[in-house]
C-alpha cells in the first residue's frame, strides 16, 4: 500500500497529517474522521470494532479542498472522502500559516506582547490583546482604572460587530450572495475607520496593553460611535431582507451542518457554534469579567445547531453589541486610561524633559520592560468566535516564560468532521463558512 500518497509522507518519523485510504487508517482514527467519535456518558459508547468499513475503496475518492480554495477563509485544507457527492469522511489539515507566535512571545517583553498576539486573530485583534493584558494584570495584581476597562469593553464590542459583519459578508459570498459581500465589507470598514481614529491602525492595533490602553479616546468619539450605531442598526434590517427571509439562502443553510449540544460540548466548541445548539453559554454572562454584569444584554441561542442558526446568532449578536455600545457610551466615566503604577506605566512625556530620573525610568521600561511576579494564570474571555484564552507562566523576569493562547477557531475546527459527514460537497462550503475560522489564530 505505498502507491497512493506522496513519498515524502512515508519518510517521516511521525506519520502523515493527511487523510489516508480506509485500508491504511487505524479504526479509532477512522471513527474520528467519520465524525462519530463521541463517548457520551449516557449513550452507548462506540468501540473501534463497531466501525463498519462498508464502503469499498474503488467507489470513493479523496479530494483536497484548499489550502488555496477561496471559500476556506485563508489556508485551511480540508480533505474529503467522497462517494459521489456525499462526504463520508473529512479531516482538516492545518499549519500552513504557522509562524511560531507562541515561541516569539517568549522573547518579547510584556509590553511588546500585545503587538505579537494581536496578529493571531486578525479579525478580532482587540480580544486577543485584551485577554493577554488581563492575564498579565492578574499576575501583577494591579487593578486598571475604570475608564480603561470601559474603553476596552467599548472597543471589544465594536470589534465584535466588525468581526461578525465580515462573517456576514463572507458567508453571503460563499453562498452566492455576492452583493452581501459588498454590504458587509462596507459596514465593517466604517467600524475600522473608527478604530483607525482611536488606535492609528485599521487592524493589529496593539491598543489594549497591560495596565490600560495605549491612548485615550479622541475628542468627538461619542458622536462617532453613536453615528456608527445609528447607521449599522438599520443596515442589519436590510440584511434581514436580503438574506434571512430569502428562500435560496434558507435552503442552503437550514439543516446543513447540524451538530448536537452533546457533540459541541465534547469537542470543546464555544461561541456561536455552541450557542447554535441551544446551549446558552456566553462568558460575558456566565463567568462575567470586566463590567459586563452591569450591562443589559441577551445571549442569543439557536435551536437546531445548523448553519442558519449560526448565521442568525451572529446577526443578532451585532444587534446586542450595538445595545451594549450604547450603554457603554452612557456610563463611560472620566479618569485615567492607564494605571498610575510607577512599576508598569512610563512617566508622562512632560516629566521626561525636566527630570533625569523620569528619563531613566522611561528608558528602562521600554528596554528592559517591567518584571512580573512568578506564577501562572489562565484567563478566558468571549471573543466573536468563542472562548479566547491566555495561559501565562512567569518566572519573575520581564518576559513571559510561556505564553499560550487558546484559539477558539483552532478548537472549533474539530467540529468540521461531525458537521460535514453525510452532507454534500457543495454544503461543505456553507459549513466551513458557518464555523467562521480565522487561520491566523488556528495556526498561530
Amino acid at each position, binding site marked *: 500500500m505505498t502507491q497512493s500518497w506522496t513519498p515524502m509522507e512515508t519518510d517521516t518519523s511521525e506519520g502523515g497529517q493527511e487523510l489516508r485510504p480506509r485500508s491504511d487508517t*487505524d479504526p479509532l482514527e477512522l471513527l474520528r474522521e467519520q465524525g462519530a467519535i463521541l463517548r457520551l456518558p449516557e449513550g452507548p459508547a462506540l468501540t473501534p470494532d463497531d466501525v463498519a468499513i462498508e464502503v469499498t475503496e474503488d467507489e470513493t475518492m479523496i479530494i483536497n479542498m484548499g489550502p488555496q480554495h477561496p471559500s476556506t477563509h485563508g489556508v485551511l485544507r480540508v480533505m474529503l472522502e467522497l462517494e459521489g457527492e456525499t462526504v463520508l469522511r473529512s479531516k482538516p489539515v492545518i499549519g500552513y500559516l504557522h509562524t511560531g507566535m507562541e515561541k516569539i512571545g517568549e522573547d518579547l517583553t510584556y509590553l511588546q506582547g500585545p503587538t505579537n498576539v494581536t496578529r493571531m486573530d486578525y479579525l478580532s485583534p482587540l480580544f486577543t490583546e485584551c485577554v493577554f493584558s488581563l492575564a498579565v494584570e*492578574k*499576575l501583577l495584581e494591579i487593578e486598571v482604572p475604570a475608564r480603561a476597562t470601559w474603553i476596552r469593553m467599548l472597543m471589544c464590542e465594536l470589534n465584535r460587530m466588525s468581526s461578525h459583519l465580515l462573517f456576514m459578508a463572507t458567508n453571503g459570498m460563499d453562498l452566492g450572495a455576492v452583493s452581501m459581500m459588498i454590504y458587509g465589507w462596507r459596514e465593517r470598514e466604517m467600524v475600522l475607520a473608527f478604530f483607525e481614529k482611536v488606535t492609528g491602525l485599521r487592524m493589529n492595533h496593539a491598543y489594549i496593553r497591560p495596565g490600560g490602553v495605549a491612548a485615550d479616546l479622541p475628542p468627538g468619539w461619542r458622536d462617532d460611535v453613536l453615528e456608527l450605531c445609528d447607521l449599522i442598526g438599520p443596515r442589519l434590517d436590510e440584511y434581514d431582507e436580503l438574506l434571512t427571509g430569502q428562500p435560496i439562502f434558507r435552503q442552503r443553510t437550514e439543516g446543513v451542518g447540524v451538530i448536537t449540544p452533546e457533540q459541541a460540548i*465534547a469537542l470543546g*466548541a464555544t461561541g456561536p457554534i455552541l450557542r447554535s445548539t441551544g446551549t446558552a453559554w456566553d462568558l460575558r454572562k456566565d463567568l462575567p469579567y470586566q463590567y459586563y454584569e452591569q450591562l443589559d444584554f441577551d445571549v442569543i441561542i439557536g435551536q437546531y445547531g445548523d448553519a442558519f442558526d449560526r448565521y442568525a446568532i451572529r446577526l443578532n449578536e451585532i444587534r446586542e453589541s450595538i445595545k451594549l455600545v450604547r450603554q457603554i457610551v452612557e456610563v463611560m466615566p472620566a479618569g485615567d486610561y492607564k494605571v498610575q503604577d510607577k512599576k508598569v506605566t512610563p512617566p508622562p512625556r512632560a516629566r521626561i524633559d525636566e527630570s533625569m530620573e523620569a528619563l531613566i525610568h522611561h528608558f528602562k521600561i521600554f528596554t528592559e520592560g517591567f518584571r512580573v511576579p512568578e506564577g501562572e494564570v489562565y484567563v478566558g474571555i468571549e471573543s466573536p468566535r468563542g472562548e479566547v484564552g491566555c495561559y501565562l507562566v512567569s518566572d519573575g523576569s520581564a518576559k513571559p516564560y510561556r505564553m499560550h493562547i487558546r484559539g477558539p477557531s483552532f478548537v472549533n475546527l474539530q467540529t468540521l468532521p461531525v458537521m460535514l459527514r453525510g452532507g454534500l460537497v457543495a454544503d461543505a462550503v456553507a459549513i466551513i463558512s458557518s464555523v467562521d475560522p480565522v487561520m491566523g489564530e488556528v495556526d498561530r
Partner: protein
Amino acid sequence: MSDVETTDETTAPEAPPEPARVHGALVEERNGQTVVFPERSAYLDVMKALKDDGYEMCVDLCGVDHLQNPDRSLPDGIVRERFEVVVNLLSLSQKRRIRVRVQVPESDPTVPTLFRLWPGSEAMEREAWDMLGIAFVDHPDLSRILMPEDWEGHPLRKDFAQGRVPVQFKAPNQPSTGGAR
C-alpha cells in the same frame, strides 16, 4: 493513593494541617484559581473523576517546558520534572474552572491521552506533541499538526533555538534523521 499515608507518617503531630486534596491529588489556590497537581500515574483517574464532577469541557491543553525554570513553586511532595502538561477544564453547569498540572519527566515524556474523556482534546494534544514532543499514549492520530510533517525537533522546547533551522522545507525522498534532538 499511597501519598496520603506517607504524609501522615513523616510529619510531626503538630505539623501543619493536611494539604487539601481532590480525588487524591494535591490542590492549591494560585492567583485565585484552583490548580490540581496529580501524579502522572494517577492522572487519568483524576481526570475521569473530575469529568464525573461535572467538568464537561476540556477548554485548553498545552505543554510547558520548564528547562530554564527548575525552581518554580510547586506544592510539597510534587517532584519537579522538565515538562508539564496543563489542562484547563470548564464546568458549564456549575460555572467554574479548574486547572490540572501534571509533571512529565524528560526521560519518558509520555502522558495518557484524554481523547476518550474529551474528544475535543485531540487537536490540542497533537499541538502539544508537535510543539514540545510530549507523546500522548493511545491518541488516535498523534502526528504533527502545525509544523511540516518532516520537521525535526519540537520548536517550543527551550533548547530549540530560534532560527536554528536555516531551510524549512526539504526536497522529497530525503530520508529523515528523525526524532527530537
